[in-house]
């Protein structure tokens, strides 16, 4: 609870009444620090978490053993080294991939994309390893699930188009780093859930709640200022009120 009585905003006479309601809410620092710490731990930033525990004088959450492995797995997936990632996941808990075929398929598909990327980048263009991998690893799984099959077909079509300067959007996304990040974060969630933790960091829910709430409130015709800036830009404090569009969460 910040009991800040230093209210810069009080000096602004033409303040929107909703802004006053916002200012009246005094979030507790403890809660905010909790959300930050929760994010650092569950999304795997161990060094920052350690420093934060020290600097904010809060307890490091019960030494959560998996954090190091989770960081390694994340790094492996981000780097496109899916083999290592799968091995590490199985070291941690073989059940995770066994019980989540969609996740396993997503990882294998990522691996296929990496193979395709590799074999299409050289002029020799030997696509045999990619074909072998697809038929031995992915095809049997795709046979059981129409969604998997669709994904596999799309992925395989990369072989036809690559190398290319421009790709159709649905193919281009397959080569974006975002896909790796998405899969990595799904894996992270699955590991956390398998250990009985909350899969997703609180911070994500909070950010979405903020978006959703503003959208809903505007739909319901609530009397809100035209924009609700967060002040992410330095120097753009409460003084200049709502102006800078730089940090507005838009719908």
């Amino acid at each position, binding site marked *: *609870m910040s*009991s*800040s*009585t*230093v209210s*810069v905003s009080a000096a602004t006479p033409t303040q929107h009444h*909703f802004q006053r*309601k*916002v200012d*009246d*809410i*005094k*979030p507790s*620092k403890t*809660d*905010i620090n*909790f*959300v*930050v710490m929760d*994010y650092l731990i569950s999304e795997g*930033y161990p*060094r*920052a978490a*350690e*420093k*934060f525990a020290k*600097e904010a*004088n809060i307890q490091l959450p019960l030494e959560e053993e998996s954090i190091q492995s989770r960081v390694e797995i*994340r*790094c492996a997936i981000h780097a496109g080294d899916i083999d290592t990632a799968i091995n590490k996941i199985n070291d941690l808990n073989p059940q995770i991939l066994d019980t989540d075929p969609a996740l396993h398929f997503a990882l294998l598909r990522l691996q296929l994309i990496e193979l395709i990327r590799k074999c299409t980048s050289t002029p020799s263009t030997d696509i045999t390893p990619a074909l072998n991998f697809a038929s031995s690893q992915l095809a049997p799984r795709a046979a059981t699930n129409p969604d998997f099959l669709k994904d596999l077909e799309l992925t395989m079509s990369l072989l036809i188009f690559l190398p290319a300067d421009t790709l159709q959007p649905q193919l281009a996304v397959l080569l974006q*780093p975002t896909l790796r*990040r998405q899969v990595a974060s799904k894996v992270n969630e699955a590991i956390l859930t398998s250990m009985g933790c909350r899969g997703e960091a*609180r*911070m*994500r829910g*909070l*950010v*979405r*709640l*903020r*978006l*959703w*709430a*503003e*959208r*809903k409130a505007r739909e*319901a015709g*609530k009397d*809100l200022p035209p924009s*609700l800036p967060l*002040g*992410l830009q*330095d*120097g*753009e404090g*409460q003084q200049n009120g709502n102006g800078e*569009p*730089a940090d*507005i969460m*838009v719908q």
Partner: protein
Amino acid sequence: MSRRGSYAQVASGNTGSIQTNPAPSRWGTFSHLSNSGSNPHSASHPRHSRPNDADGHHNSMSTSLGRSGPLPSYTSQFGYLNGYGGAHDGPTASAFFVPSYLRGSKHAEKLEEVHRARAAAQREHRSTHSSHAGSLSTSSSSVNLHKMSSAHRGLSHEVIERAPVFVEEPVAPWPMRWNDTDKFPQVEIEDGGRQAKFAGAQKTHDEAASVRADYPMPRQCGIYYYEVTVISKGKDGRMIGVGFSGPKVPLNRIPGWEPDSYAYHGDDGQCFSNTTSGKSYGPKFGTLDVIGCGINFRTNTAFFTKNGQFLKTAFRDLKPNVPYYPTVGMKKSNETLRANFGQEPFAFDIDKMVQAEKGTIQAEITRAKGPYKEVSTDETQFIHTLIGQYLAHDGYVDTARAFAEEVGDEVKALANDEDADIPYLDTEEDIDATQRQKIRAAILDGDIDKALKHTTAYYPTVLRDNENIYFKLRCRKFIEMIRKCNELKEHMHPIPTPPSKRSTASNNANNTNRNSTATDEYDFEMELDEQLGVHNGAPWEADEEEDDEDIEDKEAKHLDMESKTIAYGQELQAEFLNDPRREVKKALEDTFALIAYENVRESTLAPLLETSGRMPVAEELNSAILVSLGKSSSAALERLVQQTEALVNELADDGGPGAFINVRRDFLQ
């Protein structure tokens, strides 16, 4: 010892008189020193309510206010206080309860806070009386304090643990009983308001006897639900109506037949809204059937249940601005209906329905996606920016650096085949942040001098421009000195001093009594002056040395510390003596009162000594420094939380989807 005893007496006497004074500012200035959870006005609020508590005009007041306009009574200034009155009823009626399906909801939390604050106020009221009486008696109040230590400890914890109560917006209570004054005259209300019985003669065709509950169903609950059991059907019993109606609907008609009234009737199983012509709805009902009635304010629909079975939606398009009171109507002699407003488990699994509703809304929230304009279109990136800015803003320098590095590594790994130089986190060294972190660390360690020194050196204007913070820091220093004294003393007296040792305190009883009856705070200050000045000398030391001679060294340290504390206290007093501000005077009084206690930890002032009091001062100073640098006083993440809560509140007030969200509980813990 004897000297200390007298101070304790003086202080407790005066403290007592301050407590009886309902001045709201007693904790106001010092709330930052007590606990992070306390709102400046939370502790004082219950005192305001005290005069109203005893007020027996519960119903007359709430009804008159409630019927005065289209808004329910709780929007009036005092209406909500009466919700827990029931002083004229049996104990069952006044007992506070939370219906199972509302547990953990934001609205229930608010009501619980109001309830707790009220209960605490009553306890405080009683305890103030007793301690006041004690200090006036000839017995030494330091002994009293010692004996009462556990009680006091409990009280002080109560005070500091209480979550903030925002008095500006009274919280709408839910129905708790049938209303004695809002019924057809021949309806008898029994069993603490739970049972309604028609005691009159049989009604003619279009007449009936109805009764409304004490409060409307609060829209802020999102879904409100209650049940009624038909205890006994009257002779040839027919025509029981269960439903809800607006505050002005005549009570000599069965609910459902009048405008703004809605009900499910037992004789034909039809449901009626606003007219005498019904539509077929469900089965008939009679003796021992349990009929449930619920409104979903998000969808503005109503439904009924029978014996735990959901029937179907009965009404749609309920008016969003009419307060709907649970209402039942009867026609035959001796018909009796018993209500369950949540005091007992329900026959229907309403909890599940509310959970499902929450689930739907959660799923909707989970699907909410950016873009987060300009900063990034990506959620992860947006979160990283938020966290990075928060860490830098609040001066968590090392964490900010480590986080930037780790995120940087991640970005590099992701972009392995592209240009890896795309760090979106600003990793530049922020010299201000380092200095601010130093100042914060000093305060959190209790080293106020260091914090003052650094602040003056790095940000010379801050303390000058923010005199209130300067004052709080100076007070905090005094508190830290007292803490130090206490620590030293605890080393000296590992075993609590038996009360007999304090018998000498009674020597000063006369003196003390004269002082403790002093009514005005100015006298108290003069008196503190006198004590701080006069008793700061040899007689004190002599007393202390008599007590224990083995540990002279520690004793000497303690005495040294004590005299330094006193000297500092005088300095502080002198510096702010002429400060006209009331809150400064109050804060000074509270702070100086600390020195009067033999063992402050067992006094009502104990919260002032908590180390948790350091954090708010540190944060306030940090914010002031940021403002002086032209930066915003709160981090973007903090503002995000503020905005989120405010938006959700907006969405909850009219029973919208926000009613099913408890931001703190569901998203911050």
